[in-house]
């Protein structure tokens, strides 16, 4: 008789239980293993989602749990989708989204293009470039707040050094229209390495023989770039754009730490406004409808993302 752990476990199992387990089909055993995960998924993801959908049709306020909850139909949705203020927040989100994606794609692709060439110190440079995206958004938000300080901040000092504009005469995070661009700069600094890494994966997936064939056909470098490199990296680039689009649509922590949505409502992204409605104004039903609108948008974008991901996998 062997004495492996499985044998010892089998001998230690009471005969009644062993009989029951032997009677279970493979499918039943599989369900037993999967059941805890499904239960957790239902409890943590699906149930709150269904509950939020239910709340979005009511006037429920979480800070007044004893108040009678009224069913208000589509009123919350109609109010949100006809509100000029929320529309302006969506435009602020769009401004943030478009500019961060444009800058990250242009700079990320350029860096990947450079890093893809073999030169001394290539690996060290890649590691240094990738460092910002490994930091916590909370850390990034805090130290950029210091960098943007009008009196002691490095950014204002550098601007004064190169332009002569007094450092204390402007504030990157204050009124004057610079705050919108300040958060774009920080997000670009943090997440360009991510886009670079995806582009690098795309560039390295292009076989050398395609370029060799192009060389034989006497195609110029410029033509090789537009007819080989760009089309073959495009699916990877699409992936990066979608991923950053989804992430930035939900952007919250870093912007809260940098500007808190201000000055005024200048950097009030939809996610920050939603948090205010839900946990400062305590309009739970209304904010549930707001959350569902954002959720459907992100879910739709995520569906496209998964489709793009599958296309890349098929290559």
């Amino acid at each position, binding site marked *: 008789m062997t004495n492996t752990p499985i044998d010892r476990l089998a001998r230690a199992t009471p005969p009644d239980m062993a009989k029951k387990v032997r009677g279970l089909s493979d499918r039943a055993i599989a369900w037993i293993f999967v059941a805890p995960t499904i239960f957790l998924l239902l409890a943590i993801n699906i149930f709150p989602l269904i509950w939020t959908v239910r709340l979005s049709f009511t006037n429920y306020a979480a800070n007044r749990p004893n108040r009678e909850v009224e069913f208000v139909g589509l009123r919350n949705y109609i109010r949100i*989708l006809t509100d000029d203020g929320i529309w302006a927040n969506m*435009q602020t989100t769009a401004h943030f989204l478009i500019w961060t994606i444009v800058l990250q794609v242009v700079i990320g692709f350029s860096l990947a293009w450079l890093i893809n060439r073999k030169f001394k110190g290539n690996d060290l440079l890649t590691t240094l470039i990738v460092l910002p995206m490994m930091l916590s958004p909370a850390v990034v938000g805090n130290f950029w707040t210091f960098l943007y300080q009008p009196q002691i901040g490095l950014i204002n000092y550098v601007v004064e050094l190169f332009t002569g504009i007094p450092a204390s005469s402007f504030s990157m995070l204050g009124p004057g229209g610079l705050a919108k661009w300040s958060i774009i700069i920080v997000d670009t600094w943090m997440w360009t390495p991510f886009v670079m890494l995806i582009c690098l994966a795309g560039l390295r997936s292009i076989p050398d023989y395609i370029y060799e064939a192009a060389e034989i056909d006497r195609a110029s470098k410029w033509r090789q770039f537009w007819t080989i490199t760009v089309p073959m990296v495009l699916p990877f680039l699409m992936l990066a754009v979608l991923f950053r689009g989804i992430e930035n649509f939900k952007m919250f922590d870093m912007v809260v730490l940098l500007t808190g949505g201000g000055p005024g409502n200048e950097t009030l992204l939809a996610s920050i406004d939603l948090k205010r409605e839900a946990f400062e104004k305590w309009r739970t039903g209304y904010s549930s409808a707001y959350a569902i609108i954002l959720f*459907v948008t992100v879910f*739709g974008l995520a569906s496209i993302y998964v*489709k793009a991901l599958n296309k890349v996998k098929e290559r």
Partner: protein
Amino acid sequence: MSSFLTGLARFRRGSWEALATALIALGVVMLMQPFFLWAYTWSFLVTLVGTVMFIVTSHFPD
């Protein structure tokens, strides 16, 4: 274009997914554009239709 329409008529996954993707993208653009309030108002419905269509049509045959 004709293969796209044929795909729609025959309930093929590719064509219907492309349509759903276009609707989602249109909905997101409508949600964030700064020009027409009516487009913002209807954006959620367009995105919702596109998303539900995407979920349903991803089960269509290739």
